[in-house]
């Protein structure tokens, strides 16, 4: 059985200008110790999905429906109390902006300690020792001094390491990383990605990586799910997805990213554009969500939303026209 099974997740928001169907019928699973990347552009619902998993969506104006089974239990049916025991303990989260997700008036050590004392029932002394161990684990030099420092005394990279330390403090089974390196500089991003790869091997937690950066996906994910306009449009093992994307949106996305070193190979061609704009999610979309921007779209696409179909081993895509079997890359 998978560690996390999400079935027909819908997260809608009531807004003055209509109902925003931010996530509309998304199903996926995460196995133990596996890294699943959720890829998509802003507004595709990837962050709302992750917030829904943690039940961090304010209701109202939001509402979540469907099923989120974590280790067999539906998180959506749990009481707030049960949910609090899961957050930060069995499932924890790393956010994009490490400055705003740490409390500026508490020391780093105290913030790690608190998680441990609440969830693991450790006493202050044991929690302190464990906090120092966690800081060592995430590669912070002089951890004994750093536990007594405040977030503003740390650099952006260091703060993200502290966030990871807090997230991993209780040995979570699932770690949700929402754009963990987006706010960081390239060289710092490289440090954090290396750390995440190391920790993946050592800690063994399953990871849901939310990102828009296909480079980061290729670096650490095992399986990738592509989202567009609140739906899942494609899912495949990482190598398969990059080698033979089936959904026209995924193909467009991969074609739109220039590759480093392309000028040397003499392959600097015009970037592939996806014409048009993301649809307005406040208006119901009858057929395929991508039909308005898709070169292959026909009347069939505009009327009947395609379901997810198996297009290859472990490879599913929601497109009426995506071919089955291998396609030439």
């Amino acid at each position, binding site marked *: 059985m998978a560690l996390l099974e999400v079935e027909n997740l819908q997260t809608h928001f009531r807004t003055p200008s209509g109902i925003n169907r931010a996530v509309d019928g998304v199903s996926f699973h995460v196995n133990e110790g596996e890294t699943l990347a959720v890829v998509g*552009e*802003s507004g595709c619902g990837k962050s709302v999905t992750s917030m829904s998993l943690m039940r961090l969506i304010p209701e109202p104006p939001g509402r979540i429906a469907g099923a989120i089974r974590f280790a067999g239990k539906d998180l959506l049916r749990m009481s707030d109390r049960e949910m609090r025991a899961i957050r930060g303990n069995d499932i924890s989260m790393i956010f994009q902006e490490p400055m705003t997700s740490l409390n500026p008036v508490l020391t780093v050590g105290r913030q790690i300690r608190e998680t441990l004392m609440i969830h693991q029932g450790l006493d202050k002394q044991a929690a302190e020792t464990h906090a120092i161990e966690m800081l060592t684990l995430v590669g912070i030099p002089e951890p004994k001094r750093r536990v007594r420092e405040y977030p503003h005394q740390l*650099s*952006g*990279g*260091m703060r993200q390491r502290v966030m990871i330390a807090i997230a991993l403090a209780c040995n979570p089974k699932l770690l949700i990383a929402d754009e963990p390196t987006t706010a960081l*500089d*390239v*060289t*710092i*991003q*490289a*440090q954090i*990605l*290396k750390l995440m790869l190391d920790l993946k091997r050592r800690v063994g937690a399953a990871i849901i990586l939310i990102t*828009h*950066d*296909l*480079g*980061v*996906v*290729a*670096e650490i*994910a095992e399986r990738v799910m592509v989202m567009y306009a609140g739906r899942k449009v494609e899912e495949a093992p*990482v*190598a398969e997805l*990059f080698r033979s994307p089936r959904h026209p949106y995924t193909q*467009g*996305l*991969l*074609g*739109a*990213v*220039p*590759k*480093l*070193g*392309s*000028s*040397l190979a003499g392959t*600097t061609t*015009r*970037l*592939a*554009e*996806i*014409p048009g*704009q*993301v649809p307005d999610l406040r208006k119901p979309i009858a057929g395929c969500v991508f039909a308005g921007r898709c070169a292959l779209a026909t009347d069939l696409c505009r009327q009947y939303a395609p379901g997810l179909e198996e297009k290859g081993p472990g490879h599913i895509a929601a497109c009426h026209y995506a071919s089955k079997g291998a396609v030439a890359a």
Partner: protein
Amino acid sequence: MSVPLLQVNDLKKHFPVNKGLFGRQTEFVYAVDGVSFEIARGETLSLVGESGCGKSTVGRAILRLFDVTSGQVVLDGQRIDDAHPSTMRQLRQRIQVVFQDPFSSLNPRMRVRDILAEPIRNFGLAKSATDLETRVTALMDTVRLPREALNRRPHEFSGGQRQRIGIARALAAEPELIVCDEAVSALDVSVKAQIVNLLQDLQREFGLALLFISHDLAIVEHMTHRVAVMYLGKIVEIAPRREIFAAPRHPYTKALLSAVPLPEPGAKRNPIILGGDVPSPINPPKGCRFHTRCPFVFDRCRTEEPHLRSEGEQWVACHLDALPAG
């Protein structure tokens, strides 16, 4: 060789920071500390580096959004760093800018028509009201926006469309150089490709020179002719695209390039992972500014500052490079 369109000579910009209760102890942020480069007509020069390296400050100094501390900015043989305000206003027509954030770079209370008309009116480019209207509609066609959009306000557009409006405004002045300050960084992947393609088309069509300020190396490689790599207010390497991406010489350039994650799963990479963080530009390290993070640091780097030395068209500021090969 003909006169370059833009010359920047030993540009310095130090921002004062007041410390202490009465602002007596003044320290300086050495945002840009001796930067020189040239841009030829129709050329794209990219300024790359991480946040705080001073690349945006260089762009703003060229636009003269503030006065520089020292150094010269010369446009087509004419100094702009000390130009009189009235002269400057005429010179501004030749250098335009596209900013990063498509949401704050357009005045929310103005219609697109008025946004585009502003530079045309200021520089007296239109002969009549009909000419103005023709120009404004032509600009919309150029950046591939519907003409009806002229009567709408910025909040009715998506990020990509707003960036097109920003580009149209820059083009309205008929400039020779456009400073693109992280112009595509805030955009989504598919929209980014649209804007990159648009910029390339416009450059070809109008023979524009671009100063492309970005931290996204893959986009830079795609767009640029030459690249200048900045670190803590200084250029550490400046070279044509081929040299930078095929054979980077400065250890920082090497690290920067190797740190970019590639969208190819299982690609064999040996990233040079730099330890530590960028030091504060208030107290930049003595000697080579990169010595605190450089994997190849030796004694001379800590005391003596390296200067840009050329090998062909590739200029590098590194002591290691001065050593005999082997």
